[in-house]
């Protein structure tokens, strides 16, 4: 499956020659069987990681909720997800009769295929020797690798959307529609948060971005972008608190409602692989990729940044993000849909845009006046600190008390020659007929009709 990615990576090498200049990783030694070994290793890594991730999530959430979690099958319940997978395999595969059969079967395939593609450009480590061939621990890389990841994620959503539509049922359709809106809005924020990394690293190739984090990992100088990425990555993978496409309280199972057996398992698999994907992207772009954390990286002149050691750091960082996912799930409630959309469009996207402009200015200043990045960062931190202190000195503005609403005022709707509707707080005079009726029933009462025609509500 990762073959597709290989083509994308290898095509410019073969066809375009010079097009791969800004890629640090050197794939020139790679031969056919090295590609094959790497692709198979990635698939095996992903599938086993998913099995462990399901167990991990259930155990950790259980610990957070003070209960044991799966503990029956295998040591510590480790074989529980294997048993679940077997159960799904042998369950009856129901195909809904009213479904659009072609799309119904195609949808889970799209979801899984696209989720498997992302890891092709994720660097697991620097160059190592595999059976005598020196090659980077990465299937492929090219100058727009991170955009390729975004593209795979974008196409993967078609699985959810089409699955929801083809089931020919209301709840799945609602889930699919929600998923469309969710992904479009959160992908914008995610893409914008990644742009600041591109600007700082000067490249969109993953190996080059990891290479640019030798001095400092980008999550520190680009903290706002990192926070935006963290929020939008949860939204992008449909996880709590953003799991609105499959909100079981409202939509039964969302887009998976009509799916069973293996087809359901594929959606499930895709969701967990996507979690691993966004964790790996966060690691690569913001957390130094395969680089060892600081005290370890200084040992023995960077010994732990060479050979096979980096795989350990990379996997550890990915699982740190996986833990974050579980932690969020265990502690945050699901958003209401309109609040969720409001956060995406009114908070995340403007914040990400503003941040990109700031980063551009800083980077422009660096190139114009040739300032050292560290000096610049210290100066900026000082400016922010001064601004914070100043903000404490500004007295808080108390909201002005709203004027007391006066009673309804009667207006003459024909004052200017043509009828105008009453504004809030105004009432129309009783109609001629009502006036006649009023005069007939109670000639002594000068007040208006019983129900004043005041405008209420929006």
């Amino acid at each position: 499956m990762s073959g597709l990615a290989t083509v994308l990576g290898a095509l410019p090498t073969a066809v375009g020659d010079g097009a791969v200049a800004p890629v640090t990783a050197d794939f020139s030694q790679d031969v056919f069987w090295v590609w094959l070994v790497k692709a198979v290793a990635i698939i095996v890594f992903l599938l086993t990681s998913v099995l462990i991730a399901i167990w991990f999530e259930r155990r950790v959430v259980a610990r957070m909720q003070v209960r044991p979690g799966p503990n029956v099958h295998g040591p510590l319940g480790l074989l529980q997800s294997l048993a679940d997978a077997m159960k799904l395999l042998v369950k009856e595969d129901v195909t809904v009769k009213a479904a659009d059969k072609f799309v119904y079967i195609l949808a889970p395939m799209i979801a899984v295929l696209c989720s498997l593609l992302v890891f092709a450009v994720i660097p697991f480590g620097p160059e190592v020797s595999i059976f005598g061939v020196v090659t980077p621990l990465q299937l492929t890389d090219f100058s727009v690798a991170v955009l390729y990841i975004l593209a795979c994620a974008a196409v993967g959503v078609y699985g959810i959307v089409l699955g929801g539509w083809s089931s020919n049922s209301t709840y799945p359709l609602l889930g699919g529609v929600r998923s469309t809106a969710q992904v479009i809005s959160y992908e914008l924020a995610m893409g914008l948060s990644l742009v600041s990394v591109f600007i700082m690293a000067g490249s969109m190739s993953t190996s080059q971005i990891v290479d640019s984090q030798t001095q400092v990992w980008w999550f520190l100088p680009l903290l706002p972008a990192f926070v935006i990425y963290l929020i939008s990555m949860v939204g992008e993978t449909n996880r709590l608190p953003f799991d609105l496409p499959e909100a079981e309280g409202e939509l039964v199972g969302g887009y998976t409602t009509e799916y069973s057996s293996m087809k359901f398992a594929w959606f499930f698999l895709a969701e967990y692989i996507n979690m691993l994907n966004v964790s790996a992207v966060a690691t690569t772009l913001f957390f130094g990729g395969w680089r060892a954390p600081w005290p370890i990286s200084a040992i023995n002149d960077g010994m732990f940044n060479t050979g096979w050691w980096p795989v350990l750091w990379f996997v550890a960082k990915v699982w740190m993000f996986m833990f974050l996912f579980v932690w969020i799930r265990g502690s945050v409630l699901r958003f209401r849909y309109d609040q969720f959309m409001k956060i995406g469009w009114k908070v995340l996207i403007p914040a990400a845009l503003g941040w990109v402009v700031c980063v551009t200015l800083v980077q422009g200043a660096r190139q114009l006046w040739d300032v050292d990045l560290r000096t610049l960062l210290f100066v900026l931190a000082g400016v922010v600190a001064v601004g914070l202190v100043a903000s404490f000195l500004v007295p808080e503005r108390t909201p002005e008390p709203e004027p007391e609403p006066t009673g309804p005022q009667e207006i003459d709707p024909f004052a200017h020659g043509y009828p105008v509707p009453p504004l809030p707080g105004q009432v129309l005079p009783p109609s001629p007929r009502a006036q006649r009726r009023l005069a007939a029933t109670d000639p002594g009462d000068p007040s208006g009709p019983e129900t004043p025609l005041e405008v209420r509500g929006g």
Partner: protein
Amino acid sequence: MSTLFTALPAAAGALTDAGQTSTAEAVLFWTLGPLMVLAALGLLLARKAVHAALAVIFIMISLAFMYVAQGAEFLGVVQVVVYTGAVMMLFLFVLMLVGVDRSDSLVETIRGQRWVGVLAGLGLGVVLAGVVGRATYGPPVGLVDANAPSNPEAVAYLIFGRHVLAMEVVGALLVTAALGALVLTHRGRLTAKVGQRERAERRLRDGGHPVSLPAPGVYARHNAMDVPALLPDGSPLDSSVPRVLRVRGQEADAREYAARIDRVLAGGWAVGAGTFTSDDEYRGGPGGAVAGGVVMRDPAAGPDAPVDGTDAPTHDEEDGR
């Protein structure tokens, strides 16, 4: 499959000086090309709008492959991100609401529309053939020069250098279109917006229920909307049954269910197993309760009133533990 994918580009070479593509690129083209034509025909002939959209998506992704094969990797990937991932997704968003079973009607709504369409299509074809047939190409520079220093940077130089004015104009046009759509669909508010908070405050001011209404009674053997929940003193809570059921008079008698639980707690479950409240021997005839049957409490007697005949705990006490 993987073998084909990896072997194919490896055999490909750069664009030769004569402007000829390599064999591998030709193979890629002649594989994807017919498939794309088929998909394009599918777009025209598909009866369901979503199938047509799927055909478009297939063509877009195949085009992206072609772009990448020609060294324009930025264009290829951005095409998938922007067009497939966002624009087509929005299309699908609208199309999906049509539903699976609906398909396009082939009835001609405007007379002669079909023939006009065919004529216009033929005309476009003739124009395109004329332009493409007479086009002349300059000498190929080679992708290395065109893409120097790298593909995204070369594209950036073109967009923000040579074609910057066109880019800005297109951008302004798009922003204008978006603003226009906003203005046209905007509706001025006559009154302040009534949100969730305002509604909640108004509800409390009017003396309404502060939170959602209590759920209907749920019992071990009868889990239904029509059974009222019981207050701690055993009296039924009317507002826990949906208003519609109450209006229709379909509300169940809570005491039957409460009594059944009392009977189970008293150990009389074996007698009534498999029976319904309508069974006479279960409820007891007009002459009184049968042995092991229902033990009724008088709800008017209050919570502390002893259950007649037994010391068994009532369901209320069970709940209270």
